[in-house]
């Protein structure tokens, strides 16, 4: 349902003018305006981006398919009978029905329930029932060609078992798209080893979808919001860490390294962190163990792959998160938690136990989701306006400081360019 029905978005409507303070101030309408959201769909989710749609391990065999999303647009990810992966819109070419309903499935073809137009696993229309009518009465006119009425196909790429799609036809390769600095840590999680799916979480957050990217480009919040990390020594402000940003500014890796000997918190940092307390102790220490299974200097990497993917490696708990925007004020998050084929039972259970950190009931996940909710609520009805993004001064790009908002500024440099703001 595009073009004509939507408000045309000329280069920059006068009401949406970026404040003169450049990247140190983000106006609220970036997060709340329906007009901005429409433009994001057009220029970002349906534009020149690679959007995460599936892990290959979710559709392991020929005929497997999955309902997914590019932006908010429903798509089907299917493996055809020869093993190739296709992505196409979940919208029948006849009357527009969202034809595929189950979250996951297996079939030799896809049949629309309304009039049973039938598509192969690449999205091609293969049959229209009674196409020639009954006893040669009715049916499709001769000039109707099946080839003209397939499902809208997206451009597809995969990297080590991770499937991405794009409405843009002439995309650069995924590797060029994310750049070498971010690709490096992506490949640590996805070295090409077969994955073992451990399960799904799903949650909404009543906040703008970009807030989630910003949260993971914001090393500042980690030791302030997340008392758990601090109290139980998982991360402290003094840990070695980095906010790695690709050349375009849109992708990032928030990384930190746990010192072998455990955390040391200097007195100055303790004073800054309200959360710090020496009194709390975990009973079950297995939770904090880090099995050093990765070829990486980092014990934690949280990657933001623009526009809709988070790759989580938090000690030994691994997952991807797909962001599905639902207008400016809400997004849906689909989590896929996984390990590797060949993990021992104990290793799988270790990953599951450590999973308590993340997700909508995770010790960290709860706090991030609540904080983002508070921010959106704060913006929706206030008289004052704008976010202050001044930590680290005007610095942009990769930074090894914790107390900086450089990654957020980098993202908005890119965003303003693409959005024409």
């Amino acid at each position, binding site marked *: 349902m595009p073009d004509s029905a939507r408000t045309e978005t000329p280069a920059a409507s006068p009401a949406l003018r970026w404040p003169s303070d450049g990247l140190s101030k983000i106006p609220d309408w970036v997060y709340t305006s329906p007009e901005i959201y429409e433009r994001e769909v057009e220029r970002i989710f349906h534009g020149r981006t690679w959007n995460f749609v599936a892990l290959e391990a979710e559709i392991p065999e020929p005929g497997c398919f999955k309902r997914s999303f590019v932006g908010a647009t429903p798509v089907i990810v299917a493996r055809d009978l020869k093993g190739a992966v296709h992505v196409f819109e979940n919208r029948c070419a006849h009357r527009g029905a969202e034809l595929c309903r189950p979250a996951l499935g297996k079939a030799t073809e896809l049949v629309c329930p309304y009039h049973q137009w039938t598509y192969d696993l690449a999205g091609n229309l293969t049959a229209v029932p009674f196409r020639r009518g009954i006893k040669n009465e009715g049916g499709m006119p001769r000039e109707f060609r099946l080839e003209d009425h397939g499902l809208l196909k997206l451009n597809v790429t995969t990297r080590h078992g991770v499937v991405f799609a794009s409405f843009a036809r002439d995309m650069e390769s995924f590797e060029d798209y994310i750049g070498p600095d971010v690709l490096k840590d992506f490949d640590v999680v996805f070295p090409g080893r077969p994955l073992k799916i451990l399960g799904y979480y799903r949650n*909404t957050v*009543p906040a703008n979808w970009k807030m989630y990217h910003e949260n993971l480009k914001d090393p500042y919040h980690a030791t302030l*919001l997340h008392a*758990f990390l601090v109290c139980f020594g998982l991360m402290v402000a003094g840990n070695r860490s980095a906010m790695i940003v690709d050349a375009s500014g849109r992708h990032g890796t928030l990384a930190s390294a746990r010192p072998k000997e455990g955390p040391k918190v200097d007195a100055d940092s303790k004073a800054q962190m309200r959360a710090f307390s020496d009194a709390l102790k975990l009973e079950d220490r297995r939770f904090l163990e880090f099995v050093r299974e990765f070829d990486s200097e980092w014990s934690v990497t949280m990657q933001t792959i623009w526009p809709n993917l988070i790759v989580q490696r938090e000690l030994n708990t691994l997952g991807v998160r797909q962001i599905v925007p639902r207008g400016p004020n809400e997004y849906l998050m689909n989590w896929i938690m996984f390990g590797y084929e060949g993990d021992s039972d104990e290793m799988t259970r270790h990953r599951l136990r450590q999973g308590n950190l993340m997700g*909508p009931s995770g010790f960290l996940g709860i706090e991030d989701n609540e904080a983002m909710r508070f921010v959106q609520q704060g913006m929706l009805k206030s008289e004052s306006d704008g976010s202050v993004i001044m930590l680290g001064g005007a610095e942009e790009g990769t930074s090894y400081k914790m107390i900086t908002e450089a990654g957020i500024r980098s993202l908005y440099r890119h965003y303003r360019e693409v959005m024409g703001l």
Partner: protein
Amino acid sequence: MSAPAADLRSLRLEIEEFNAEYAAVLDAGRVADWPAFFSEDAVYRITGRENWDAKLPVGLVYCEGIGMLRDRALAIAKTTMFAPRYLLHQISNTRVLSVDPASVVSAEANYALFETLVDERTTLQQVGRYHDRFIREDGRLRLKERHCVYDSLIIDTALIYPV
């Protein structure tokens, strides 16, 4: 199901009472008292029905052993930041499925969990089913396993307290 019918009914009623106490503790926000409903080696998990049906092991909450239960209770009570809220459980449709030779009782019950945030309407946080295994310790039932399997696959923002 080896036990006679009268015993099964009595068990059902006892489990109802157990669950009513369990819910009262959680609804009052007394999370520190929650681990006492479990045995030492208990498994506690909250997971979506899609995972349960597909035998995927993940848990939104996944605790092995009472230590992890106590750690979660501690974290929620002492370190976790979240907005204040009221919770209320409705537990019904309790069924005793079997009693095995070692007296482990398998049971199920349906729950609805209602959540109310400051200045907002009450919402249905989730509906689901407890899949339980009880043992008896010092004459009292204790949970050896509780899998809270929720139908409401899409969590609204966060599920803070145990279910």
